[in-house]
C-alpha cells in the first residue's frame, strides 16, 4: 500500500492506494494520526485507490472519526468503490460517516 497526503488551503487529503487489510492498516492508522495532530479543519480520506478493505481498515477510520469529533475536525470519506462501500453498509457505518462521491464533493460536504 502507498499513502499520499496533500494539503490544500481548506483541507488535508489522504490518498491511500491498494488493499487495506490487517497487513497494512497500521500504516493507514499512522498516516491518519499524523494528519489529525495538525488539527486541520477538514480531513478527506479519498478511497478511490482502495479496491478492498477489511475491518482493520474500518477500525482505523472509526478511530479517526472519534479523534476528529473531539477536536472539531470535519472528516469526510470519498471515492468508495463498491466492495468497500459494502463493508460500511454491512457494519451499518454508511450513515455514521460522511461519505460523498468524489474529492470535489468532499471539499464542501
Amino acid at each position: 500500500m502507498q499513502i499520499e497526503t496533500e494539503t490544500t488551503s481548506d483541507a488535508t487529503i489522504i490518498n491511500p492506494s491498494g488493499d487495506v487489510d490487517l497487513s497494512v492498516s497500521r500504516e493507514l492508522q499512522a498516516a491518519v494520526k499524523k494528519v489529525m495532530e495538525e488539527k486541520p479543519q477538514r480531513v478527506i480520506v479519498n478511497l478511490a485507490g482502495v479496491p478492498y478493505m477489511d475491518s482493520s481498515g474500518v477500525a482505523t477510520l472509526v478511530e479517526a472519526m472519534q479523534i476528529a469529533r473531539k477536536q472539531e475536525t470535519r472528516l469526510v470519506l470519498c471515492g468508495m468503490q463498491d466492495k468497500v462501500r459494502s463493508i460500511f453498509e454491512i457494519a451499518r457505518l454508511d450513515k455514521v460517516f460522511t461519505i460523498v462521491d468524489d474529492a470535489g464533493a468532499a471539499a464542501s460536504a
Partner: protein
Amino acid sequence: MSEAATSNTTELPPPFESLGQPEMRLELLSQPRYLCGGRSMVESVALRLGFDELNAGQIALAVDEALAIVIRHGYDKATDRRIWMSLWPAEPTTGKEGIHIAIEDEAKQVDPAGIKSRDVSEVRPGGLGVYLIEQIMDAARYEQRDPIGMRLMMTKFAKKNPSNDKH
C-alpha cells in the same frame, strides 16, 4: 431420536466430518501478508461456483476476517503458526449452488459460545470481525477441534431459496 437424525442431515454448516476430503485445502503461515492469498482464492472460486461479484467479494471478506481473528486472537499475532482453509461446493451436500468453508487452527481452545458478534449500533473501533462473518454467511459455527485448536464452519448459498424450508 429420529427427529435428531433428520435435523442432523440438514444441519448448516454440515458437520466437518460429513463433508469428506475438501476440493481445495490451503495451509498458510499466520502472517497478515498471506491473507490476500486466502481471500483471492476464495473469491475467484466463489465466482466459479455461481456467486455474483458482490457476493464473491463478501465471502472473501468473511474469510479474511476469520483468518485475521485466528492470527490476532488464536495465535496472539505469532507469525510462525499454521492455519488451514478448506472449501467444498455446497451442491453435493445440499442440492443448492453455494460453498462450505472451514477455517482451522491449532490455537488454545475457547468456549465457542463466547465468540459472539457485538452490538454494532455502538460505534467504536474493532470488534466487527465476527459480526461481518455472521452477516455475510448464511450459517457459521465455531467449534473445538479434536484434539487441539478451533474450527469455524461457514456456509453460503449462491441464491437465496424463495422458500426457506425445502421439506
